């Protein structure tokens, strides 16, 4: 029905911080404390090698991990080439490369030992 009108009601989008799965965030933060220093300036996203070819933004990824929107993260985290440019440009000294590496590791771990 809705399709016929050329527009549709916007799907409700509520992020429930109490119910979201923060395990990945905690896993990363515990092993790479510098993750907490991110100010979301987007320098990493601007220099990213992968972003040149596809939709991949480390800044967005950081926010998604913090919010615990792991399904979104899972979709894009493998696109990173780990080239390390983001780590070099980060003004806050976040070891961004390790953040991506740990996120993947966290998914592997939680997927294998699902709670």
């Amino acid at each position, binding site marked *: 029905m809705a399709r016929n009108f050329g527009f549709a009601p916007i799907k409700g989008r509520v992020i429930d911080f109490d119910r979201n799965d923060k395990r990945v965030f905690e896993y990363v933060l515990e092993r790479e404390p*510098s993750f907490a220093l991110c100010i979301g300036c987007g320098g990493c996203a601007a*220099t990213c*090698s992968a972003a*040149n*070819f*596809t939709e991949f933004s480390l800044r967005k990824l950081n926010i998604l991990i913090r919010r615990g929107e792991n399904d979104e993260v899972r979709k894009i985290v*493998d*696109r990173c*080439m*780990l*080239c*390390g*440019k983001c*780590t*070099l*440009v*980060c003004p806050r*000294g*976040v*070891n961004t*490369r*390790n953040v991506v*590496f740990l996120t993947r590791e966290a998914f*592997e771990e939680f997927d294998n030992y699902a709670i």
Partner: protein
Amino acid sequence: MPFNPFVIPFNIGLYFIILYVVARGVVWFRDLPRTDKLRMQRGFFGRPFILSIKEIFMEGLIHRKIFKVNPVLGYMHMSLAFGWFLLILLGTIEADIFGEKHLNPPYKAIFFRFFNPDHGTAGLAKHYGFLMDLILALILSGLLIAIIKRFWSGIVGMKRTANLKFLDKVALTSLWLIFPSRLLAESFTCGAYGSGSFLTGSLGTALAGFLPAEIMAYPFWWLYSLSLGTFFILLPRTRYMHIPSEMFLIFMRNSGVRIGDQYGSCADVQIHACSSCGICLNVCQLSTSADITNIQAAYFVKGLKREDDVFDIALNCLMCGRCDEACPVGIELGPLRMIHRRAGDPPKDTMSIWSGYLRLRNQNIQDNGESHITAFQYLKPQPVKKGPEVLYFAGCMTHLTPGIPIAMRKIFEAAGIDFDFMDKDGSVCCGRPLTLAGKDREARELIRNNSDAIWRSGAKTLVTSCPICYKIFMESYHLDVEVLHHSQYINRLIEEEKLKLNFLNKSVIYHDPCELGRGSGIYSEPRRVLIHISRLGKSNHEKEDALCCGGSLANLKIDRRKITDIVSDVVEELTLSNPDYLATACPLCKKTFGKADIKAGSEIKDIAEIVAMAIVSEPPEAIELKKRTKLEKVSL
């Protein structure tokens, strides 16, 4: 006296260790791949065997390489190893010549003095006794240094010494007890019978003066036998397993067996051949500059030996290769770490039977279920320009130091080379960072994408500005085009006289990037280029001994602040002579050097940038003349 019960501990230990080493050797050989078995079989009947004997003598006994690094440390190792070897050899000969009969059991030679207490008072036997005492004195002097080193490591010039665990400490104590107890046992016996030479004889006489020497001797003979027995029984579980393993490793290496890229017999031998001598601790910049002291090669190998979880240790390393160069045993430490990075966390069910005396290693690569992942599906075939024979690949890091591609473009144009800038709109990563993180499968996808573009372009030469890319181009791409680092390419342009350069009259210190120097063995070309255009000076760390800038992509775990600590030390060290330029050939080194405080007057430059500055620009009249002649030709 034919036999005495005190020799029993020694005998048990000795026969145990002989059987154990033989069994271990057989297991190691059995687990080798077929090709390596053939290599070793061929080696056994050929030159490698003779070379190995020589190397075992030079490295295993004399410790030549340790002598080169540190004479005091070398003397310590030499006196213990070579001295003990001589003591056993000459002791056996002594027992054979002067004993009651020939071909005695080993205990007769080791405890010769006990069974022949009044031996060696005159003639040849006396001189021989002098020799034996001399060797014992040699060992004891080494032992003294070892004890001093354990408590005050600074005295022998070591900044740090390897930390030990409980069993190591027991074995170390028993090793330390062996020689003093021998000295005291022999001295008491000699004192009681009035025999012995300058050491045992005089000490014996002195002790016999106020002690009941004959009664005192017996417990020390027991102690001597017990410490030998304990040492032999514990040997397989401690770092002293390096003694038989190193011999096996030397023969393996001379036969052409290498560690490869997965766990196997060769890796196991190498792990056991580490003596925890601690030389790697002193060359590791993480320990000397950044105060990270638990990840060095000695600890990594020790962790592997104990089957601890060393995955984080494996990742926390710059992979600069300084420890590989320094290791006196020649363990392939870099490849060993790479194997572990690839394997990930070790499977927990790796079995240790007999609590570590023999272990069954899982020989196969774990299937971690990643084979289906195609992470880089978004990569489309790269657009290529057909025609130019030279392809320039800047690499990701070079895009962060735009001065380098600009300089390269200037160089290409000055030399009149038709080239294509392959990744001018941003590169697909070469794959080396993924490889270094142990993600070989994913790296393979990037390699495929880049190789495809290189092949389709039809270029003959691939020039890259980044040593990281260069290394993987050489190792894993299997391209049929010539791959050159820009320093090699510029050197060739100069040699072929395509590039005309001015002499800059600036003083330059060259820093060898790890991946280009130790990683790929390219030392001379960048130096030749720099000598051509500048006054190239020498730093205290040249070629194999070059420092790492600290920014290496290989280390995933290092804190950014620690990198600043490392690079500050490196820059300070390299700019001691106040050079005009601190030159490097790696964009990542250049970028990392930027973090340090640089002394006024020194500037960080890539080799390409210095060359670009030296390019002879033709005077405007000449260009004018050229244009005119061209116009005249057209008008004609």
